[in-house]
């Protein structure tokens, strides 16, 4: 992987542990931030008031996760950038989120399919990261794990309801799964950085999470009478800032007010 331009974490020299932690926190933080943004758009558009409430609640938790992780990244990379600076001052190529979280939400089933993939991943990841050798990551993860577990339960319950509900909901849920599954692979992508951090006990090698993840989601999908998709391709690119075309409009909207009022006081 050589397409690491422009550098997302310019402060700390590449290859040092701090630089690695900064980049790692940035990846996880951007995932949470961008998924939060997608969920925000559901509010007032959900199928029930309870879901307006649940989705905004999950979005709020994800935003909380993103803020801690981005702040952590800024402290680790030596630039001391704030969460806001990361969120509002970077351009498309500097974001490190997976393509999974930036995909347009689609219908409620596709949204739940993405939630299922992402939340099973984060609940496994954060549970492991709680034991990280890095204090910042460990304290973040031990708090976030509980919330991730709740998000995971929300997604799993809806998957079962839709899978076993009506013919239409079953068909839509299966279609949602087929749509997002190729993108789930990126969550488990490994590179030199994750290998280094796994070796020194700071992070978890994604490959170790993948087996557990597959077992867990298979259990839910089986329960729901749905088929585990077998995608013929795997998405990649987000971790090096190569996004989908849907990402620029998402970011433009996200940053629009901030950029419209230079020097603003918020």
């Amino acid at each position, binding site marked *: 992987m050589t397409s690491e331009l422009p550098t997302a974490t310019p402060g700390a020299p590449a290859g040092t542990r701090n630089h690695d932690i900064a980049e790692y926190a940035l990846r996880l933080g951007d995932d949470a931030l961008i998924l939060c*943004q997608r969920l925000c758009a559901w*509010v*007032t558009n959900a199928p029930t*008031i309870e879901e307006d409430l649940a989705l905004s609640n999950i*979005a709020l938790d994800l*935003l909380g996760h993103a803020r801690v992780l981005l702040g952590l990244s800024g402290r680790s990379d030596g630039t001391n950038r704030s969460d806001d600076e990361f969120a509002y001052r970077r351009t498309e190529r500097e974001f490190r989120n997976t393509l999974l979280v930036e995909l347009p939400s689609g219908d409620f089933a596709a949204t739940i399919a993405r939630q299922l993939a992402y939340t099973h991943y984060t609940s496994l990841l954060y549970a492991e990261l709680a034991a990280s050798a890095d204090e910042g990551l460990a304290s973040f993860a031990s708090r976030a794990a509980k919330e991730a577990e709740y998000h995971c339960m929300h997604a799993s319950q809806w998957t079962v309801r839709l899978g076993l509900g009506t013919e239409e909901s079953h068909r839509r849920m299966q279609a949602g799964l087929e749509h997002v599954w190729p993108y789930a692979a990126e969550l488990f992508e490994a590179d030199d950085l994750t290998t280094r951090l796994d070796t020194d006990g700071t992070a978890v090698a994604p490959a170790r999470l993948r087996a557990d993840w597959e077992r867990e989601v298979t259990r839910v999908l089986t329960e729901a009478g749905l088929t585990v998709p077998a995608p013929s391709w795997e998405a990649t690119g987000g971790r090096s800032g190569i996004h989908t075309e849907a990402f620029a409009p998402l970011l433009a909207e996200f940053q629009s007010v*901030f950029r419209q*009022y*230079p020097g603003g*006081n918020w």
Partner: protein
Amino acid sequence: MTTEAGSTAAAADDVKQRDEYFDALVAAGECVEPRDWLPDGYRRMVLRQIAQHAHSEIIGMQPEGSWLTRAPSLHRKAALLAKVQDEAGHGLYLYAAAETLGVTRAELLDALHNGHQRSSDTFNQPALTWADTGAIAWLTDGAAVINQAPLCRTSYGPYARAMQRVCQEETFHVRQGYDLLWSLCRGTREQQEMAQDAVDRWWLPAVALMFGPPDTVEGGDGDTRAAALGAAVSRRSMAWGIKRHTNDELRQRFIDNVVPQAERLGVTLPDPAIRWNEERGHYDFTPVTWQVYRTAVAAGAQCGRQRLAHRVAAHEAGAWVRAAADAYAARPVTERQEP
């Protein structure tokens, strides 16, 4: 024949006694509960008010909800998410309170969607800029707090209890809105202009539409017939302990609260008649006449149609999800072990 007439008379007597007993109960400030006997008129009036209130909470999510994706700082994004989430919660409490009167939430939503019931006209204005989220929270939630504080002691128990939960959160919303505008007013010139413009546009919706038409004869300002009618409805509602104060009384209370706040913020309220009246011990302001009220309602009509269309579209798009949840819930318990 005589027996029949006799029993009719006895029944009429009974109803009269129950009515008198009920009126005495609420006059003494007692709460009535769903299991109590309620006069039909009371039941209709309470239901109408709770339903309109519930509808306003969920329609009111739209103007601010549309700014969730554009909030200019993560702190403000979090605060706005929390606020809009609170409003959804208020809708849920209030629909539950309405359901104690023998209707279902689905029926109430249908009534909203087909125009038989309405939400408050306040939210029938477009939220044009980020500053609108501040102006809405400061002014319309501020008006809501004034309106709702007395409702924590309203005569219908389930409504009063719902309002006690709602009120605490509304107070917090007002503070957040004020704080948001405070930042803008201490920002760049463009930000200050944005704040002032939003206050200009949300002033009348708050002052006129959150409190309703004039309901005292003085408030009628010439339109005596409409004012007398409004006053009669208000008197009935107050006699039953549903409302505790007239619209005009609450409006004055709001003005008295908000004028000093505006001065501290550094925004100008768009009413040149606002002036401290030493004699009355209140701020004077341009009276909200029926004419003013009707004009404000009419100005929001098209936006109101859009709000309703948004709501209906979301509801229809989610029909298959609700059908699936219902079908799943109807399955035998053994088949639905939650994962």
